[in-house]
């Protein structure tokens, strides 16, 4: 149908799941800390190097999911405690917090590059072009990464749902998202809740990063390259909706992989080089036509 083959569908599903995993954390942090987190770029890259390092040490790269979750979770805590908490305590504006995440991202971009160089010179590993798909398993010809990324997405969303609705801590976290001042009055330690949300959001970004080299070639730049797209996924799904990111992720992932592949066969392959415009364009259209639920402040027009 439409000349779309099975590999395209598989690719679309995989990419959608990966994008969703990246977007979830951005949305979650936006809901709890109210800050668009630029450090998501280095969170994802950290996940990549977690699984790459493990594979160098002889483990299967999928162990990187666990390592990436923990490591990136800790990285997020570092950001939270070293920069965001001090800023929050001085009642800095959201904008300053945002620049704080940017500063952290630049710092970690440097560190990750140093680490990659180090792996390259010491281990003679190709640490600037990480591609681990040859180590993947497959079921009936379908690469394992599709099952793993979809599986991780389901686990993350389900886990988040259960946490936020079935546990006291989760309900407290939800309470913090809605009204920090009120959550304080009922004895919730808000800073602890924020910390929890940073750990989870960082961890999930780490998972997506750990999975990434099983699907595409990655480098220390991968997070920086993808961060605009991550924001598009989050915004498309609606930053005010915790579960919005997967919606944005699937829309974007399918548009990028399936739509592009179809267009390439119909219009010509030259169109592929324009693919990166898709998420950006989609975001612009979202903002113009369906800004509702996008936390926009509409400026009131004077009547008459």
């Amino acid at each position, binding site marked *: 149908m439409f000349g779309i083959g099975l590999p395209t569908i598989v690719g679309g599903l995989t990419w959608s799941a990966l994008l969703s995993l990246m977007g979830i954390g951005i949305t979650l942090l936006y809901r709890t800390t109210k800050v668009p987190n630029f450090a998501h770029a280095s969170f994802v890259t950290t996940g990549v190097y977690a699984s790459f390092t493990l594979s160098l040490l002889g483990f299967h790269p999928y162990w990187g999911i666990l390592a990436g979750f923990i490591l990136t979770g800790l990285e997020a805590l570092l950001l939270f405690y070293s920069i965001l908490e001090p800023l929050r305590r001085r009642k800095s504006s959201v904008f300053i917090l945002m620049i704080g995440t*940017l500063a952290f991202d*630049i710092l970690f971009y*440097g560190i990750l590059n140093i680490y990659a160089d180090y792996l390259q010179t010491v281990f003679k590993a190709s640490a600037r072009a990480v591609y681990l798909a040859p180590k993947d398993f497959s079921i009936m010809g379908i690469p394992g990464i599709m099952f793993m990324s979809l599986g991780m997405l389901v686990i993350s969303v389900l886990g988040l749902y259960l946490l936020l609705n079935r546990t006291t801590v989760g309900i407290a976290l939800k309470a913090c998202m809605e009204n920090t001042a009120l959550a304080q009055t009922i004895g919730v330690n808000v800073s602890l809740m924020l910390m929890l949300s940073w750990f989870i959001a960082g961890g999930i970004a780490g998972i997506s990063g750990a999975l990434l080299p099983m699907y595409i070639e990655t480098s220390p730049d991968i997070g920086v390259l993808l961060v605009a797209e991550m924001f598009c996924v989050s915004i498309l799904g609606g930053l005010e909706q915790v579960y919005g990111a997967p919606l944005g992720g699937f829309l974007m992932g399918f548009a990028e992989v399936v739509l592009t592949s179809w267009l390439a066969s119909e219009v010509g392959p030259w169109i592929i080089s*324009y693919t990166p415009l898709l998420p950006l364009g989609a975001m612009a259209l979202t*903002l113009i036509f369906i800004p509702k639920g996008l936390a926009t402040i509409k400026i009131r027009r004077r009547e008459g």
Partner: protein
Amino acid sequence: MSVWSDIILFTVDLLALFGVYLIINISLNIQRGFAGIPNFGLMFAIAGGAYITGAVATRLALVMLGMHTNLDPIFDNIPVLSKVDPLLQSQSLTSIALMIILLIIGAIFGAILGLIQLGPAIRLREDYLAITLLAFAEMINVIAVAYKPFIGGITGVQVPDVFAWSGEYRFYIATAAILVVAAISYVYAEFLGRSPLGRTMKAIRENEVAAMALGKNLVKYRAIAMVIGSAFCGMAGVLWTLYGDTVTPTYHRFYWTFLPWLMVLLGGLGNNKGALLGTLVFTVLDKLIIYYKHSLAGMLPFDVVWLDQVLLGLITAIILIYRPQGLLEEKPYVPKELEAKLKSIEKK
């Protein structure tokens, strides 16, 4: 080469970089400092100015020199330039005219890009606005790489050398041109800050909620600030391209958006002197790091440039936490007559 000429070349190169960044930072100051636009997509207009130069400079030179050729100025870039450059070298007035026309084109193109970029986002809240502007800016490289007739795809193009007439003083003259435009932008921003328009914009920045009540005016002032700022950014792109007489579609948001932000934050937001100081400190630091990194290279198991990033990230975090107002704090401008009146009241 003597140490002396080494130092002079270093200084000239440093001043060129300083000048280009000063133009950009002043325009960021106009956008963010005056009108509260968190422009995280500065690169859009800067790259726009650079790329439009690549796209039209050779064509324009052909017209101005009255030359005809069947070759394509983009795809047969080198052969065409090998005919254009020698002729241009002997015509200093035409060269200068070409530069001025390119600056005007760059300013207009930058301003248009700024409006396109701001258009869908103009009513958004600060954080959303920042993300949208950033995402938009990413588009220009996608297009410049994919659409080859623009500036020749990923390899880029060379542009005519408009400073070749100055011979061995080429880099001095080029740097002087950059500094002249930087000085103009600085004076203009100072003037703007004291004008009623500038003060209105600052009022809007101070109180977005109250400004909301102004309704359409907020949109109008944001648009004005964006147009002015983007026009300057476009000119910065033009100058940087002419300085190196080549352009590739590799403008990166780190160098052309984030660095300017860090410089302005270092100096102090909304304050032109601060922008000047921040730019100076950063460019000197940056050049020194590059200058000394060769002596470190080989001693460490990684490329020294990455220490740049680590250092920048650290410095920024430290500024944010310990001196959020920057090196120089913004002072409200009080017109002289008013100041005199206030003093006479105080005396009573």
